[in-house]
């Protein structure tokens, strides 16, 4: 019994401490170093912050270059698929265009009405947009995020909304000098205050880790209202982080537990970062 325990201890000690000829450090040293790095990366000292920025800058750029061939293959694949469906898409788009033309007239009227009402209460929303290219869009099974090529030098700040066209994609969670990380709506850690229209219910959209989102923090009694109509989810602007009225996704009355996001996060090549301020003249 004592011998087998000794064998275990010797094997374990040897695994941790013994260096092979070509290894420069023992495993134990590197394990301690990685624990040290984990602890250190949690502190926001200036020096650590700059080292982190430096590492991020270099790694993002190299990863962008290395993943270029794979991205090219994926693009070719997606182009071929698009060409195969070109006629079918054309017919659908024609029908959609007609519907949109009719809606646009209505929207123009609503926008003018909205502007007039804002003038009446002396409130105006000013927003600025920055266009950015997606550097890395690795679909990790655990964390859903993308890297954009705009950073503090372009006046990017943590918390800014990121949109694809007019659709919300996520928010900035990390800013480096020339790039930044966006937490996608589909990530489990993403929580966005929204309003569900046309029923006007306030809620929070949370990611599921998959391609969809789900609604959280709504009162149970509103449950039946959701099931009656298809619902469009917009940002509510509560908390002041996002501009109100950015379209997020759609909830079908047949499956109220799921939000289908308008934007396809896998197809993102460019994104817009929106900052806004609500000015009240009162």
């Amino acid at each position, binding site marked *: 019994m004592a011998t087998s325990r000794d*064998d275990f201890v*010797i*094997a*374990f000690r*040897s*695994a*941790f401490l*013994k260096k*092979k*000829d*070509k*290894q*420069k*450090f*023992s*495993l134990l040293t*590197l*394990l301690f*170093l*990685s*624990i*040290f*790095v*984990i*602890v*250190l*990366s*949690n502190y926001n000292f200036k020096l650590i912050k700059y080292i*982190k920025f430096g*590492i*991020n800058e270099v*790694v*993002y750029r*190299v*990863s962008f270059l*290395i*993943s270029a061939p*794979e991205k090219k293959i*994926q693009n070719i694949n997606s182009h071929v698929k698009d060409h195969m469906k070109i006629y079918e898409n054309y017919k659908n788009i024609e029908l959609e265009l007609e519907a949109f033309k009719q809606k646009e007239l209505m929207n123009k009227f609503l926008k003018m009405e909205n502007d007039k009402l804002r003038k009446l209460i002396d409130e105006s929303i000013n927003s600025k947009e920055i266009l950015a290219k997606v550097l*890395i869009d*690795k*679909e*990790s*099974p*655990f*964390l859903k*995020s993308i890297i954009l090529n705009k950073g503090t030098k372009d006046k990017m700040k943590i918390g800014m909304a990121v949109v694809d066209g007019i659709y919300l994609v996520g928010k900035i969670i*990390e800013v480096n000098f020339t790039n930044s*990380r966006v937490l996608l709506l589909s990530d*489990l*850690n993403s929580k966005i205050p929204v309003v569900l229209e046309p029923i006007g219910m306030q809620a929070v959209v949370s990611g599921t*880790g998959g*391609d969809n989102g789900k609604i959280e923090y709504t009162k149970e009694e509103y449950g039946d209202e959701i099931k009656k109509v298809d619902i469009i989810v917009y940002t509510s602007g509560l908390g002041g982080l996002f501009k109100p009225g950015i379209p997020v996704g759609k909830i079908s009355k047949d499956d109220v537990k799921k939000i289908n996001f308008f934007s396809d996060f*896998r197809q993102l090549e460019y994104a817009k970062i929106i900052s806004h301020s609500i000015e009240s003249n009162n």
Partner: protein
Amino acid sequence: MSSLNKTIFLNLLFSYFPIGMLFLSVFNDFDFNYLKIDYFSFNFVHILIFFWTLKNPDHIGYVSIFIAGIINDVIVGLPIGISSFCYLLICTATAYIRNITLSPNFINDWLSFLFAILLINSIQVLILDLIFLIEIDYLEYLINTGFTFLFYPVFFIIFNYINEKIIIRLND
């Protein structure tokens, strides 16, 4: 002369293959996750590190593994140092297996691999969930571990073939 250059080049290519693949896979996130097959994901880096540190540790340094972990954390967006810690734990497991194994056996290696990835994924989940308060999907981790375990024999055959080539070439 040109054949000598070719041989030197091939020797270099083979001997740096494990490290090259390691860095390529962390920079490029090589795991077919983009295929978007429901519930399908596996961790290629875990297989690569386990195999090479077990079979031929001279060709994959611990420092390279540590740096690869840092790069992986930056790309995936995890707190820096976690992947390095987990990768080095795999190295610890393989070093231990090497010390206690007299006659290597594939089934033993495969089962040890399962134990190692279950352990490191559990540690990673604990660190992320309890210390960093990052919400994660336990099921995703479990499925990822399952597929990584199932894919081990496929990559074992490929890596074993390459490892034999390396040994033959370097002994020539």
